[in-house]
């Protein structure tokens, strides 16, 4: 593909691109470098060491938060992937009463700001626990379970969007062929449909995992005493100031998300070898939503 722009403009475009990449990567790179700094003061470079990584692994609060994060993310991802995939199939393949309402309802958690989502769920848990105590006398509190319930609430929609994109480009004659060969619905689904949408399902699951591991705002609102996740714990530390320990934890979190990106890119690559549309173009979600 040749563009109709000339040399001078091309040079400016190239320069702009370099500057944007420097802007995107320099802060992350510096953070990684400083995490290997053996000084109590973040700004002063002394010598390279793994000291802060060692301290991180012996820090009980950090390790506890990390464990909570992993439990929450794994459970929320599994549940939201199953429910979200079913939602995608139902919205993409069937017509029924209330489908339009569900379609809109499923898009809202993506568009709504996370502060609002956090407020909604805080009030909801507070109110429903109050009612439950009034009726049954059992008093529930917030904790890991409420965090998991909240994460599933926002993850379902994201999983559904990614799986729907995959279903939309699906060749339905393959399913018809299976039916012609006397496969029943269940068999057709597991032998034909599911393997074909699997990259979408896996992509949705990785997106859910990433969102769950990243979330600060919603989790902060619905977590109880002693049940914080790693991002919420780090957020609390960051507000008090910058420490080399946070640098080390940050780098570990960064590596985790980069591994996840690598996995999703690998999974989502189409036959053309380019990243799939649904990961490249988050705007497509909005175009579809209206």
């Amino acid at each position, binding site marked *: 593909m040749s563009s109709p722009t000339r040399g001078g403009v091309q040079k400016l475009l190239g320069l*702009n691109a370099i500057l944007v990449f420097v802007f*995107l990567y320099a*802060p992350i790179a510096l953070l990684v470098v400083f995490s290997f700094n053996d000084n109590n003061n973040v700004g002063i470079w002394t010598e390279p060491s793994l000291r802060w990584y060692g301290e991180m692994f012996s820090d009980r609060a950090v390790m506890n938060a990390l464990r909570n994060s992993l439990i929450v993310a794994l459970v929320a991802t599994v549940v939201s992937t199953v429910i979200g995939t079913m939602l995608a199939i139902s919205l993409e393949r069937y017509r029924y009463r209330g489908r339009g309402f569900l379609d809109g309802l499923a898009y809202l958690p993506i568009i709504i700001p996370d502060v609002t989502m956090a407020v*909604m769920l805080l009030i909801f848990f507070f109110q429903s626990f109050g009612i439950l105590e009034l009726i049954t006398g059992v008093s529930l509190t917030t904790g890991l379970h409420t965090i998991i319930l909240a994460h599933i609430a926002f993850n379902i929609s994201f999983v559904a969007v990614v799986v729907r994109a995959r279903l939309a480009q699906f060749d339905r004659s393959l399913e018809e062929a299976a039916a012609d060969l006397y496969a029943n619905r269940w068999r057709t689904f597991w032998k034909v449909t599911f393997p074909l949408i699997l990259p979408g399902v896996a992509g949705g699951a990785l997106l859910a995992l990433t969102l769950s*591991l990243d979330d600060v705002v919603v989790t902060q609102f619905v977590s109880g005493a002693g049940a914080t996740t790693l991002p919420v714990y780090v*957020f609390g530390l960051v507000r008090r100031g910058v420490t080399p320990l946070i640098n080390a934890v940050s780098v570990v979190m960064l590596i985790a998300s980069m591994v996840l990106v690598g996995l999703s890119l690998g999974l989502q690559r189409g036959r053309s070898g380019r990243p799939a549309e649904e990961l490249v173009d988050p705007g*497509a979600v909005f175009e579809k939503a209206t």
Partner: protein
Amino acid sequence: MSVEGPVTPELERAAKKAESRRGFRISLPAYVYLVFFFAVPLVLVFVYSFASRSATGRTVLRNWNLDSYERLLDPLVIEIFMRSFLLALVTTAICLLVSYPFAYYIATRGPALRNVLLVLVMIPFWSNFLVRTYAWRVLLGTDGVVSQISQALGGEPIRVLFTNSAVLIGLIYGFLPFMVLPLYAAIERLDWSLVEAARDLYANGWTAFRKVTLPLSMPGVVAGSILVFIPSLGAYVTPAILGGARTVLLGDYIVSQFLAARNWPFGSALSFAVMAVMLLATIFYFRMGAKTL
């Protein structure tokens, strides 16, 4: 499947009904979950915004009133609102100005280079937001890298941290990929023969861009702007880490109503107002985008 007798309209209708029932059954888990954990909470926030407070600050679901909405017109609240709105607008504008040529550059490379550049944009896009914001806190502090460079060059120590500029930098940094990716998708889809046709008809490069390329990439501009504007307006993490006491934005103001001030009705009203503004902005922007298409 057994095939007995002719296919009557009744049979067809029954099959269709069964099919739609099946679709509904498959949607049921998500339906129930979203109604219970999303629709009901949404309605609850609305209800709470009309509630009153007891002397101790507890929310009382009696004496329904409009006090919380009246307080939205308080000069202090309007100031916070305007500050957030402006900051979100400036963030969106800067992101758009930087991202358009950037996305254009990527979209017009050869396939191999294009994919590499695209992945390089996606890595920060999917990386932990908190960590990326924190990186700027390290950079912008009094003994941060930016200040040290300035001092090494013989200048004054710069302190950007805890100002509006710091929040602006953080927002641009956080949401820039949200603008680049939809723009890229729109420009990449573009039919270049139309641009060539314009050139054949003696349009110069600028005119061809203004009259053909830009209008055709408008869906990307619209989607990118919404994707940046909405989270910027409700931003909480960025101002909490990079902003100061004098740069309170809507996001942290709402949070403080729940976690510090314990004024849930007012916090609910604020949340609803933010949501309304966002929906209006989205609809307005889509209308505008549709007109230019």
